[in-house]
């Protein structure tokens, strides 16, 4: 009985390779899928539409990056179902990407430095 409490979304088959199986089908799943689809489609159309609008380049770049992260969130959370996994598992997947943020900072600074170097000494 307590097993059922700690595993609210399914049961174990006993097969080591396929231990866990979804048990309860939630009829709301389908509407979540289509809602996610419309959000992704709308954001993509919006991105293409504003690409040629007379907006300052810096603002456009920030907008595109924010919208990309929003799209990534919807794909990972709802298509890949990470939102419905245990929170400890979600953190295990997401937190390593702090290293990527660190690498972006270092690598782009290096690129800008080399640009300056080339201009000063060539």
């Amino acid at each position, binding site marked *: 009985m307590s097993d059922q409490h700690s595993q609210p979304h399914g049961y174990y088959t006993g097969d080591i390779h396929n231990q866990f199986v979804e048990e309860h089908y939630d009829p709301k799943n389908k509407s979540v899928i289509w809602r996610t689809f419309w959000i992704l489609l709308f954001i993509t159309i919006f991105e293409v539409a504003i690409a040629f609008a007379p907006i300052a380049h810096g603002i456009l770049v920030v907008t595109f990056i924010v919208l990309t992260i929003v799209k990534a969130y919807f794909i990972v959370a709802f298509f*890949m179902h990470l939102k419905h996994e245990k929170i400890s598992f979600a953190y295990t997947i997401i937190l*390593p*990407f702090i290293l990527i943020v660190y690498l972006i900072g270092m*690598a782009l600074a290096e690129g800008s430095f080399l640009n300056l170097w080339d201009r000063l000494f060539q």
Partner: protein
Amino acid sequence: MAAEATMTQETSSSTMWNGGRSPFNVSWGKMMMWFFLVSDAFTFSSLIIAYGTMRHRFAEIWPKANDVFTHFPFFEGHMPLAYVGLMTFILIMSSVTMVLAVDAGHRRDNKGVAVWLFLTIIGGFMFLGSQAWEWYHFIHGTETGAYLTSDGQVYKDAGNAYHLHHLNPPAGALVSPDHKIISDKATIDAIKGSSEHIHGANLTHNEYGHPLFADFFFFITGFHGFHVFSGVIINIIIWLNVLSGVYARRGHYEHIEKTGLYWHFVDLVWVFVFTFFYLV
């Protein structure tokens, strides 16, 4: 109600990490697929970050993707972003059919899984075909091409009205690597006489600008395309299993979920490639 919730929490915290079960409440196969995808995401991140680094280094002469990818099948003229927008739509759509296949699996609907998985495979082939078309046009280049000097500078021919759209240079003029119009006859002849006439792009030269742009384009979209190709092959294998009733006999469709994770990841990577290669 509150007492029951507390009890549940106690049960899970005291027994979840004692062995004999997955403390993450996720199967071995699914967890390993997630860990593989994390490592794969690191690879793609490194590639895109390397692209960004070189783009910052050569900021002044870096080609704008909007000036390079301007074609659309069966339509003439200057249509930047339209085709890659369509490719993005195809991939998002195939992600939706994949997640519907997973959903049908949760309902133990074997026929539904087969149909949705088949549509996902079709979407994958459509995307691969689109990418082949994009590569063909990039490699083939424009009719007028560009002039590559011995020190590696690319002077574009103004005849490419669509590809130099925003500059609007006069006919016969050249455009320098840092986007300045050269209309002086003597200078033009000197550049043409001392340089190589090139068309399109490959790993050593690129008529649209810096050769690294072409290298990164081939490497990143190629690596992504290879992932799509692998995904299509895996989907076909899984689809044949569905048709022969393997998962119906097994009693669950977890395999579809694992394949689905991979397929969504391919879509996720494209979202980033679309932004950093085409939009920004």
